[in-house]
């Protein structure tokens, strides 16, 4: 169905965003459970999820804090994991950059993997959309995902303390991270970046203040970017 009004653009966004509740919901719930296990109360869990809205970054902060690393390292590591949203912001700017400032403030707050991926694909495919229609579509994609994100964070936090004690929850986080990262390894440069990251991460594990993570992350990024350049240079 073609989008003709701002309203129809919003509902098109809601429809396209609906399947992603099955991605956001379980991760939000897992965060609620693990954060509760780590000693956070329901209010702290909900504020965390409301303020940050980024599963991988929240899990990272949780894990680095558990390692008794300095606060600044926990913050920097989580922000580093979240650097990709800056890339999303850059990619959406040509389409949304002329919208009113207050709308861009809300759009920035709600910028997550799903809203970026859906909106960028839509804006590219239908260049005739007006800026208000684009914004409406964008906010539409966020609606259900955000309701589930906050709702399931709460459910996870409420359930967290009632789970049986012998569940191997210590390894839920590594499994969650691995399952998030595995589908991202789409090209050879991605694989090289991930491999360098693992090797440097293991070698630098004894570096004080958990700084090994930052070093390994920088090494992985540079390896990926260099590999991409070499591959391009060799292409005909």
């Amino acid at each position: 169905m073609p989008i003709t009004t701002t309203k129809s653009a919003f509902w098109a966004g809601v429809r396209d965003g609906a399947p992603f509740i099955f991605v956001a919901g379980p991760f939000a719930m897992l965060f609620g459970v693990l954060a509760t296990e780590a000693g956070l109360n329901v209010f702290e869990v909900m504020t965390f999820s409301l303020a940050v809205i980024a599963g991988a970054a929240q899990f990272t902060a949780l894990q680095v804090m558990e390692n008794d690393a300095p606060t600044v390292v926990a913050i920097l590591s989580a922000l580093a994991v979240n650097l990709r949203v800056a890339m999303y912001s850059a990619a959406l700017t040509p389409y949304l950059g002329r919208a009113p400032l207050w709308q861009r403030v809300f759009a920035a707050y709600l910028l997550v993997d799903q809203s970026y991926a859906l909106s960028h694909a839509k804006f590219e495919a239908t260049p005739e959309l007006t800026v208000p229609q684009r914004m409406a579509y964008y906010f539409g994609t966020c609606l259900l995902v955000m309701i589930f994100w906050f709702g399931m964070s709460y459910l996870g936090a409420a359930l967290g303390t009632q789970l049986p004690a012998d569940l191997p929850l210590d390894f839920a986080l590594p499994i969650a991270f691995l399952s998030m990262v595995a589908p991202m390894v789409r090209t050879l440069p991605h694989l090289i970046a991930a491999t360098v990251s693992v090797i440097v991460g293991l070698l630098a594990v004894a570096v004080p203040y958990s700084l090994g993570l930052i070093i390994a992350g920088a090494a992985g990024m540079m390896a990926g970017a260099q590999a991409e350049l070499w591959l391009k240079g060799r292409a005909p």
Partner: protein
Amino acid sequence: MTDTATLWTVIISLGIGSFLLRFTFLGFVGDRPLPEWLLRHLRYTAVAILPALVAPLVVYSGEGGSTDITRVGAAIVTLVVGMWTRNVFAAIGAGAAALFLLIYVL
């Protein structure tokens, strides 16, 4: 365990920091293009940080920093299924199933 002051410092800083990451381009930069070298590095942030975070958790997963074979097995299954199916939930399901199975068998 993390104390309350540290936790709130992290929550507030991450909230502000994440917002600024998201707002930088949409808000401040407008529609000026970004340098290609910057975009090229940003493309690899997630695949460069997350593996470095997970690798020690997998390799030193046992008591006192030893290697727990059930965790290593579950990690390998998660990774292989995730790369093969490109499906986050298939990977989580397979990883969790492998972990329970290995704990039960070994």
